[in-house]
């Protein structure tokens, strides 16, 4: 007998019941999360391969993203600073940062919708924690963000707008983003698998939010009354908790309250839905 078959499969066990109590649904969902985190290396590899395969055969690869973002920021920066009659030195760093951060948010929300349906073949043939696909979607978008950050660095260096140690103040905001992103992929991933017409709706909502949220225009342009209402927009709160510290404009208490409140709501809805839907996702995709 040869030694052809050598690698042992890791031990496992499974206990699935129909008509489960809320508690056992819960523990299966928690188990999904824990094992999903345990497979982070797989999620990382899949996310990274997604990017590599998307730009397969192109010379610059994902740096095309950097270039297109850079050109867009440059063109919009000059145009809008003229239209808004603003100083380029203060407007361009704002625009570069906002545009790159929004690019991440928008792509993440849109790709969250397909996080499970794109993995249809694997989901149907092997039992995997669904959380792996969420982490994969997040990692893929973080890699894109990392390439676009170059644009911010160049613009900040050019205008000497370096935030210094205030950079660290953006970290809590980024952690909230990560939690929200994972919650969103679970929620939209499952929901869009069940209802195929959600994704177009999500995409048009995101397009409207892009114009309603201060991404290319500055919050100050609204005037005091308008600014007071901005924290009602969840996208403003989330954008601001990362952008504020980096632009050294500070983050108001209301904004933090909004960001935390909306995030808590998103995470609880996503979790409640995932606990209910987890066992059915395979039938939906």
């Amino acid at each position, binding site marked *: 007998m040869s030694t*052809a078959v050598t690698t042992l*499969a890791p031990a496992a066990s499974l206990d699935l019941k*129909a008509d489960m109590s809320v508690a056992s649904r819960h523990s299966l969902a928690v188990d999904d999360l824990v094992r999903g985190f345990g497979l982070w290396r797989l999620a990382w590899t899949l996310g990274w391969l997604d990017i590599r395969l998307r730009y397969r055969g192109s010379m610059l690869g994902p740096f095309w993203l950097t270039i297109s973002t850079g050109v867009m920021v440059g063109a919009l920066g000059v145009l809008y600073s003229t239209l808004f009659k603003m100083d380029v030195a203060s407007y361009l760093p704002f625009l570069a940062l906002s545009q790159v951060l929004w690019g991440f948010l928008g792509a993440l929300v849109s790709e969250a919708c397909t996080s499970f349906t794109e993995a249809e073949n694997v989901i149907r*043939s092997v039992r995997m924690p669904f959380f792996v696909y969420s982490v994969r979607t997040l990692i893929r978008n973080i890699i894109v963000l990392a390439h676009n950050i170059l644009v911010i660095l160049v613009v900040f260096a050019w205008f000497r707008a370096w935030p210094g140690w205030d950079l660290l103040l953006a970290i809590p905001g980024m952690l909230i983003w990560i939690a929200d992103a994972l919650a969103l992929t679970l929620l939209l991933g499952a929901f869009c698998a069940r209802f195929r017409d959600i994704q177009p709706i999500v995409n048009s909502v995101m397009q409207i939010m892009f114009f309603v949220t201060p991404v290319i225009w500055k919050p100050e342009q609204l005037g005091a009354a308008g600014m007071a209402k901005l924290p009602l927009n969840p996208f403003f709160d989330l954008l601001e908790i990362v952008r504020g510290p980096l632009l050294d404009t500070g983050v108001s208490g209301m904004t933090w309250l909004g960001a935390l409140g909306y995030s808590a709501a998103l995470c609880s809805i996503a979790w409640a839905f995932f606990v209910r839907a987890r066992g059915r996702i*395979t039938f939906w995709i």
Partner: protein
Amino acid sequence: MALQARIEVEDVSVLFPLYHGSSRSLKKMVVAAASGRLGKDQQQRVVVRALQNVNLRLSSGDRLGLVGTNGAGKTTLLRVLAGVYEPVAGRLRVQGSLNALLDPSLGMNAELTGRENILLRGLYNGLPRSMLPRLEEDVAEFAGLADFIDLPVRIYSAGMVIRLGFALATAIRPQILLMDEWFLAGDAVFMEKARQRLEEMVRGAEILVLSTHQMSVVREWCTRVVWLEQGRVRADGAPEEVLPQYLGTPLEMA
């Protein structure tokens, strides 16, 4: 192995609602809810009863063959055992590491090289990093791809893709082996080599569940046969009892 492998299927049913039909879109759900027809709509939704009240107990040493016509529920049962489809009624308990050979190209990406596909499969199976070189060596040797191992799978011949897929699927040794019949198909030269490897894997597994139309395979490998018909267990017993009944039915084309 710490614990003995065991499978318990108690009264399991699986239904497939046909979402692609009418109830799929949110618009229709909302309209139906608004007009008070949601409950009715849900009950009237087209459902395929893929498995109905299936009971099965397997313990270490069992070699089970699933027989039945196409659409009898063999593959669905394998997917239930693999934990892919969670039962809508009943209970499933599985103890022991499991490998389901259901999809020949599972997780294979034609744009990646053979070597990258091997590593990816290792990650899919949650193997620790230390096992990956061994997996790579084993698969590369068995698939016999030589220099092609570092080229994208996209340019492989059909035979090479089958060899790689087979080598990958059979490289990881489980306590419970679930196998769909595609695994027994392949070109003649490769078949003999494949057969040896598969037999080794089958011998190594504590429990085998095999779905097939080839009666010779069932006779050779299985100690027990379950005959599925329209999602129900029609007969369950030793091959010499069940197979004659099964083959005796006029519908069967064996």
